[in-house]
């Protein structure tokens, strides 16, 4: 498989050498490198990138990534992109450190490199676009539960794996603002390892261990779906509200059944759009990435960079029965 990939990459490189000569008006070529192909979230981001490309005009989007979520796979893909001489690379990294050398090589060749969604270390990129900030997400997930518990109650967290950096940070941020929700108790945090069956079992366990449980907060897309199904199967719809972070297409059934009142996620379309806008502006010299500076991102406004040259796009977007129909077919 690796050999085949190399051959493909080599062919692509040869093709890229041959093609530009024929093209009269060189388009700005922006590569969107994702964690792995075939993930709904990234497919939606690619849609956003195409939207930005259409708005900018004369921009070609190369949507690519490995077939499995490995850093090695991404390195191969990025090497191929360097060989093709793209103008900009926007990557959602599988590993913050492993990609740094290859991305530095890309920058040495004059390619604009940014990371988005899942970042790389500062040496390996010009800026990082976070979908939202950890603080905003941490507050959002507890707010979602609190919205439907005016009199307070017991909530539990169903996370991905116990070592998942993202989830742990969000849960820590959530715990940091718990003083604002005096009536709400977080009774347990359990881990479903992002496996449907284990998450389902953990959700069942939560309902057994805490018969008075009012809500399950699952800040992971696999966990929230499994928890909603477990609540539905246990006949506890209306008693236990499942909320957290999920994708509209995957959660439409849970909203319909009432197992989930509402959930949130950053809008991946907006994210892909914003990443493309930033990559374009940086590569065309319309903006520079510097601490405290801002970079325009079209309809999404501007991103403000902090000392580590990273910035947050926006608040997570809340989905409920009123807008799920509109979004469930999109991503």
């Amino acid at each position: 498989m690796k050999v085949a990939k190399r051959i493909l990459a080599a062919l692509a490189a040869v093709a890229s050498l041959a093609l530009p000569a024929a093209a009269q008006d060189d388009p700005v070529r922006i590569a969107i490198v994702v964690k792995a192909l075939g993930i709904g979230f990234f497919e939606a981001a690619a849609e956003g990138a195409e939207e930005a490309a259409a708005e900018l005009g004369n921009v070609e989007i190369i949507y690519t990534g490995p077939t499995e979520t490995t850093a090695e796979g991404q390195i191969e893909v990025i090497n191929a992109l360097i060989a093709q001489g793209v103008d900009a690379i926007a990557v959602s990294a599988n590993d913050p450190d492993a990609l740094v050398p290859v991305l530095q090589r890309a920058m040495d060749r004059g390619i604009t490199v940014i990371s988005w969604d899942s970042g790389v270390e500062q040496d390996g990129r010009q800026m990082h676009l976070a979908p939202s900030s950890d603080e905003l997400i941490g507050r959002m997930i507890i707010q979602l539960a609190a919205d439907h518990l005016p009199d307070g109650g017991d909530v539990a967290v169903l996370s991905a794996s116990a070592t998942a950096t993202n989830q742990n940070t969000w849960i820590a941020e959530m715990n940091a603002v718990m003083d604002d929700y005096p009536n709400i108790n977080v009774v347990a945090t359990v881990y479903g390892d992002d496996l449907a069956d284990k998450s389902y079992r953990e959700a069942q366990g939560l309902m057994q261990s805490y018969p008075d449980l009012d809500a399950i907060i699952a800040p992971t897309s696999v966990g929230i779906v499994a928890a909603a199904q477990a609540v539905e199967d246990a006949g506890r719809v209306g008693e236990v509200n499942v909320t957290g972070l999920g994708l509209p297409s995957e959660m439409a059934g849970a909203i319909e059944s009432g197992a989930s009142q509402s959930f949130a996620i950053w809008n991946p379309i907006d994210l892909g759009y914003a990443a493309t806008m930033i990559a374009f502006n940086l590569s065309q010299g319309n903006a520079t990435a510097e601490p405290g500076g801002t970079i325009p991102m079209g309809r999404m406004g501007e991103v403000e960079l902090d000392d580590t040259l990273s910035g947050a796009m926006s608040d997570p977007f809340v989905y409920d029965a009123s807008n799920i129909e509109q979004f469930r077919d999109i991503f």
Partner: protein
Amino acid sequence: MIARLLTSREALLTGAIALLLVLIASRFPAFVEPGNLASVFNDTAPLILLALGQMAVILTRCIDLSVAANLALTGMVVAMLNAAAPGVPIAVILVLAVALGALMGMVNGILVWKLDIPPIVVTLGTMTIFRGIIFVISGGDWVNSHEMSAAFKAFPRAEILGLPVLSWIALTVIAAFGLFMARAPLGRAFFAVGGNPHAAVYTGLNVGRAQFWAFTVSGALAGLTGYLWVSRYAVAYVDIAGGFELEVVAACVIGGISIAGGIGSVGGTVLGALFLGVIKNALPVVNVSPFWQLAISGTAILIAVAMNARASRRKGRVILKRAEAPA
């Protein structure tokens, strides 16, 4: 005789499961309520189904690492079929799932039988191929609960005499498998072929053919489980049941199936699966740290393997001593 009965793997496992239940009950009494035990059995049903198929394969000195991928591919196919044509009756979907699973099992079987490739290599290859095919046919998209028809999701959950259909299917397959392994010529052939392939050939058994059918049985059960799994969790995507093949092999090993082939029983396999099922269901309610959960599951497997190894080593020594004596 009684001593042998008491030290049999089935008795030991029953004891271990009972001890486990007592331990869990001391921390969380509601766990051992009949209703909850029934739901633990129901939750373990997919593991039991796959472990029985795996048992047939391991008995013939092979191993089937592609079961979880087979499950996932069949699950994705029936889920996509249901999403595209919600009117297709469940009976057709069941037949299709079993047939498709059996077909994939046959591919494994043919490669092992006719091309003589080691089973671990064959099934490692087909495992990757099956996962790849899921990706290709689905484009990496999920089939979600709202895209599946109500009947499709309701089937394994429907209750007959207080037990869900999923449990009834497991019970039926256990009974059928028990009869098949004990009475059917093919069932006996699995033991004969694995116990001593050379002797099996002299008695007129075709070793490759027996292995082929073992893979087919394993595949058919994986296919059946594929539909049940997707319907139970109401979601189908590329990675469902990822790594589940190892759990299936673990259930067999804990159940006393010898990896060297020829030794094992339906009862042992079912108990091995139940042992893992009880642990998996109990750990979330007894508040054990997730890091310990992995360690506990791993320890159970190691102990079982050590016991298997000890049992077979002792037997080997006795034979050697007898052979040495006349010389």
